[in-house]
């Protein structure tokens, strides 16, 4: 097995949308993550470098960046897996406005979660008995398959439809809507289905499956969106939706 390079050549995006890549030399370490590399640059080379991270263990979803052309969670991406000949190019996530350096403005990403009615709408008060949901029920299993999203924005950055259609809600918001559509306790489905069946909703998806390919948690938003398409189409054909 070849020895890893002693130094990495790391190109980092600097500035806002009209910025450029600048190259830094970073020592190669064992078990080094891409986030370690970015942190090294900020701590030892240029303290003005801006980037986001919080938990460093793949839970918070704040450290996603574009690494050698692909959106990735940087805290759990090992350099050994992605460094091509000891080279790394790290930029901000696509499909989101760049604030500075590696930081994007996530506002529209989270606005779309709200727009897709990604908020639980309770059907009962706390005075009523707790809902009983069988763990092996079809709806619970469907929700389970989609529920571990950490809002990192990787799928949103990878999505071609988001790139082409700014009104499209995107894979993360629709995936979240799918979990709630399958939540027997939720009372928000009429409004939710009306939103996701409208222009920019689930039917805009081309099923390219980039979201599934890049999701760091191996979720399948394309399958969730396909479920929403079926559900919304059935509701429309039954006359429950106006479009």
């Amino acid at each position, binding site marked *: 097995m070849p020895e890893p390079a002693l130094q990495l050549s790391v190109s980092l995006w600097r500035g806002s949308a009209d910025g450029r890549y600048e190259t830094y030399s970073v020592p190669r370490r064992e078990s080094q993550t891409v986030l370690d590399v970015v942190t090294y640059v900020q701590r030892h080379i240029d303290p003005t470098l801006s980037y986001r991270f919080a938990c460093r263990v793949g839970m918070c979803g704040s450290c996603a960046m574009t690494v050698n052309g692909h959106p990735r969670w940087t805290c759990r991406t090992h350099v050994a897996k992605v460094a091509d000949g000891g080279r790394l190019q790290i930029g901000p996530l696509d499909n989101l406005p760049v604030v500075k350096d590696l930081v994007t403005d996530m506002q529209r990403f989270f606005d779309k979660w709200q727009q897709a009615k990604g908020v639980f709408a309770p059907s009962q008060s706390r005075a009523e008995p707790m809902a009983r949901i069988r763990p092996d029920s079809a709806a619970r299993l469907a929700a389970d398959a989609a529920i571990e999203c950490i809002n990192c924005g990787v799928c949103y950055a990878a999505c071609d439809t988001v790139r082409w259609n700014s009104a499209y809600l995107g894979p993360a918001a629709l995936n979240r809507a799918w979990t709630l559509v399958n939540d027997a306790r939720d009372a928000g489905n009429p409004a939710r289905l009306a939103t996701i069946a*409208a222009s920019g909703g689930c*039917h805009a998806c081309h099923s390219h499956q980039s979201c599934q390919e890049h999701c760091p948690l191996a979720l399948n938003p394309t399958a969730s969106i396909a479920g929403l398409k079926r559900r*919304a*189409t059935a509701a429309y054909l039954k006359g429950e939706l106006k479009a």
Partner: protein
Amino acid sequence: MNVRLYVWQRATAALMVPFVLVHIAVIFYATRQQMTAADILSRTHGSALWASFYGVFVAAVSIHASIGLRNILTEWSPLADRSAGWCAVCAGIALALLGFYAVVALVVM
């Protein structure tokens, strides 16, 4: 694309599957039999069956293609949704007029 357009596009796509197969079979038959245009017109002239077959086919194609064109314009051109919709409606009407004219030529003229 909203759910209404989605349903129309999928429904017309499903409808077109047998029509496309029959259409291709007809093309193969006509070429293998070395039929001339006059031979074909002599068989289709006055035929309610061919008129309804190609009439429905043209209607399905016009609806299906115009919805697809609307999607392309929405995603690949600077046109707003509404403008893209009107362009697609115009294209659909043009396709329908050309198609129905061909059907009339095949069956009546």
